[in-house]
């Protein structure tokens, strides 16, 4: 199932980002940097391309194989979402840096350069799968909160992520007041 720009915008709306900012609606080049940081890009003001690549590598592990369009979705979402949330952006960047450090320690390479199987094993060896998400917690807890759960929140509060499970208006998505009245046949018919 294809993740669309609409999904990214919906996920942004669910996280309170300023939807409509240049980061969301601009060119691909704009997507890499927060709009407020375009003139003076450094690690503290935006998610760097490297950090974003690490986040995309996490998405490869935690998103189901049947979704496509992940890269644009994650870029649009992650950048738009952190554009006006410097503390959150810093927490996310730190968690992604931590993940890279573990990858370098165990495999002499950044997380994003590992193959899919090794990425999954790093997250599991860090015990991120069993960690309770906590923005101020231990390394696995922060990776769970800022990387894994951030991505899962974006996906499963979007229409496409919801539809994967069978709910076209998932919690967190302002999908209107029609879908709760539809029966399963009508919902299926709408998808076809």
């Amino acid at each position, binding site marked *: 199932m294809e993740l669309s720009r609409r999904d990214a915008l919906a996920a942004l*709306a*669910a*996280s*309170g980002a300023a939807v409509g900012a240049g980061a969301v609606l601009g060119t691909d080049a704009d997507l890499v940097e927060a709009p407020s940081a375009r003139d003076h890009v450094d690690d503290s003001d935006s998610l760097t391309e490297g950090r974003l690549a690490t986040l995309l590598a996490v998405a490869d*592990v*935690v*998103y*189901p*194989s*049947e979704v496509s369009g992940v890269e644009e979705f994650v870029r649009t979402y992650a950048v738009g979402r952190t554009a006006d949330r410097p503390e959150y952006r810093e927490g996310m960047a730190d968690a992604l840096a931590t993940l890279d450090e573990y990858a370098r320690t165990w495999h002499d390479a950044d997380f994003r350069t590992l193959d899919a199987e090794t990425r*999954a094993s790093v997250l599991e060896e860090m015990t991120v*799968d*069993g960690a*309770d*998400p*906590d*923005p101020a917690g231990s390394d696995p807890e922060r990776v769970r*909160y800022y990387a*894994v*759960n951030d991505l*899962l*929140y974006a*996906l*499963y*509060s979007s229409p496409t*992520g*919801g539809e*994967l*499970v*069978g*709910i*076209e*208006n*998932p*919690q*967190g*998505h*302002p*999908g*209107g*007041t029609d*879908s*709760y*009245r*539809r*029966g*399963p046949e009508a*919902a299926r018919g709408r998808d076809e």
Partner: protein
Amino acid sequence: MSRAADRTPSPRADVCVVGAGPAGALAAHRLAGEGYDVVVLEAGERFDDEDRERRMERAIRPGHDPLSVWEMGGPRDEYASAGEWFYPLNRTRVKGVGGTTLHWQGMVMRLHESDFEPWPIDYADLRPYYAEAESALGVAGAADNPYAPPREEPFPMPGFEPSYSDSIFAEACERLGVTMHSVPSARNSEGYDDRSACVGYGTCQPVCPSGAKYSADHHVAKAESEGARVLDRAPVQRLAHHEDGERVTAAVYATPDGETYRQEAREFVLAAGGVEIPRLLLLSNSDQYPDGLANSSGAVGRYFMEHLFAGAGGTLDRATRQNHVGFMTSECHQFYDDPTQGTAGTAGGIPAWSRDEPTPDGIKLEFLNYAGPSPVETALSGDEWGDDLLETLREGYGNAIAMGGLVGQRPRKDNRIELDPSTTDDHGNPVPEIHWRVDARTEAGLRRANEIQRAVLDELGVDVAWTVGPEETGPAYHHMGTTRMGTDPDESVVNPRLRTHDLRNLSVASSSVFVTSGAMNPTLTIAALALKAADHVDERL
């Protein structure tokens, strides 16, 4: 300095309102609209509307204390639960501009005529105020409820259409002779009062990011546009009275910079909810009133009542389409006035109550639209990801179905709010101490609710997985009864005009004046009483 940040007293206030929740906001708006100089003192902060999606995210995503959604908890909100049953006070309320309507569910039913029998006012007295309250809050509702008390005009907005799962329930209810009908909802079904229609975020409780669900910050803004001053982070510490003992002279309040001020006024309206109002009266003791202000009856803090939740649910062998929206669209009030009755439908019925227990009081039954797991919440709290997680989500979502309900409590003197002198808040004041338990009659009501719920679910063929009855129940977060209304000053705290018997310029606008609990969600009645209290203040001014 902005006006919002100026927390010094107003020099010539006519009215001082304590609390900026629905009661305080509506009373302040009405009185400011009449031209009075109104000051509202609110203990909590003024929240920024722009933050609501982030508060929603905090509510959905694990990793945040649920109390952090609306910044509750900490030294300001310390309390003690000393009764037979634990009472989770801070989960039940929000302090801030808008009060507990910031996190409420938004269900707004009128009490029934029978509910008023022990009260010194009756339904007819409150009926025009109910209509005004429905108009103020913006209520979406339909005229299909045969058990509702008489009303003079349609609801301000059309009701929300029934859900798909309501249609599943309808089959079983018809066979059992159980009547389903719509639910009045303080939630816009279309644009109303400059707020949008509901857009279906599905997180009504605890956050509506769109503002379609009513919250009292809207009437705070309206009050301010009529000239009222609203001071946030200005908790009232005590009320001072005149030496004649008949009038309150000032509300003494603290501000974040460590200062303490006195707001004088001609009239005072307490609108701080069923726990903080009795606490403030008890904290305001004096040589003349050693047991607390307005407490010559000894009833301040006594007769605390709640509604208790009863429910049952499970799974069905068909899709039930849950968790699209965060509100209900159908209820059953058939067992409200007579919970013991049996029913007869096209294929059976609910047996009449026959247990050897106290006769249950009224029951309100609910058909949930958010039974079972919400996929996004499950996804964030599991220990899987990728294809495994998706498979788990698909297995977990889709077939859940459930009913809920409320049962009231009769007033019992030993259910009470006291002061706990051994624990103090951030200003050194003793914290509220809650003594609460559930009696045999309420337990019987919960069992009766479970009986009916179980009969409906069995008729549908539901594989029942859980039941919440007397053993598992918890409070519905409705604080009632702690400054009860009455005509006898020896038995009650306020008179039918919502003025305290003891002090002639002190009114109470709150569910704390409820004489009985009923089993309907209380906020519409709180709003109606607040408008009535404001009218009586206006008459005295």
